[in-house]
């Protein structure tokens, strides 16, 4: 258990963490396996660096495709340019969109307005007119109903005004007289 802990502390010290506690140092001095691990871990950096050139020399001469990079550069430039174009000219783009929308609207309206009625539509419109003309009582009824609604509204208003007068007279102890009474009130 102490060996495991000591080796972990040795590793942590190697990785630039905290310093190894003294108890771990004392244990490493006594324990041969931990001492060997400390030596191994301490040597690793130097050994890895020393072996690096030989290790990299074993790498096969990897084929680097300059044409691929050229194509990538061109693609990147294209993307950057198109992005710049959009970024630098937002107003013309917005104007073009608005113009197109306006043109579509006008065209739609003109086409819609100028479109002649089909014979079936004409027949339906004439039938509607005839039905209205054939039932004047219905018209009158509708007008009378609208009038009665207006009357009711007027009466509600009159009542409100009268109650307001009464309230003010009671509250202020005054007399309010109507000199020129409007016909409607």
């Amino acid at each position, binding site marked *: 258990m102490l060996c495991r802990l000591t080796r972990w502390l040795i590793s942590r010290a190697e990785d630039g963490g905290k310093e190894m506690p003294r108890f771990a140092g004392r244990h490493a001095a006594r324990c041969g396996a931990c001492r060997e691990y400390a030596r*191994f871990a301490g040597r690793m950096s130097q050994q890895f660096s020393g072996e690096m050139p030989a290790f990299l020399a074993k790498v096969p001469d990897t084929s680097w495709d300059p044409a691929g990079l050229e194509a990538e550069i061109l693609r990147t430039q294209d993307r950057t340019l198109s992005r710049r174009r959009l970024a630098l000219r937002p107003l013309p783009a917005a104007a073009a969109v608005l113009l197109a929308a306006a043109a579509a609207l006008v065209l739609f309206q003109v086409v819609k307005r100028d479109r002649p009625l089909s014979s079936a539509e004409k027949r339906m419109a004439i039938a509607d007119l005839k039905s209205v003309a054939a039932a004047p009582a219905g018209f009158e009824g509708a007008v009378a109903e609208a009038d009665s609604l207006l009357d009711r509204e007027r009466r509600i208003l009159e009542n409100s005004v009268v109650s307001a007068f009464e309230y003010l007279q009671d509250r202020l102890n005054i007399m309010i007289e109507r000199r020129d009474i409007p016909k409607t009130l």
Partner: protein
Amino acid sequence: MIENGPIERKPDEELAREARAGSRLSFEELVRRYKPRLFVYFRPRLGSDQDAEDLVQETFFKIYRNIRHYDPAFRFSAWLYTAANRLAVDSYRRKKTAAGRIGPTVANDADLSVRAAEDTRSTSLWDAARTLGGKQYRVLWLRYGEELSVDDIALSLGKSPLAVRLLLHRARMNLMKRMRPASARAAAVTVEETKAG
């Protein structure tokens, strides 16, 4: 004029800054420096040399596309390996999806065991490290090959610093176990030679 001195002597960060400003020469120098390094980084994880080469090339394309986002305040190698790791993960996932299976492939396992067997004949620390398997080899490479700090490695691999320390610790322990037979053999040979002498 962007290039002010011998390009080979310039640090990576300066080259990356120049590449960001549009210097093709600086970018090519970065490619020259990191091409073999990325290859040995990718190779144990992938099935073939060709796959590793493709991924190296893809990484540099990605770096070139995104070079304008590079901040010279950070180490170039940490940034490069972050992109490389993401691409490797994507590539690995694509392959798994294409093969219709989850988990390590039989070929890779066989490859690893063959390499482990080869390792007993080899005393090279890097060769032994390659046989440790993906994560442990990668942290060893980033720590000792690229001399990145634990925090930079954590950033590159998308792990916590503690997870990286644990991986490094396990890698060291395993590496010592693998190197021990070779060193023991070497010691035995030395003893025999001494006796014979």
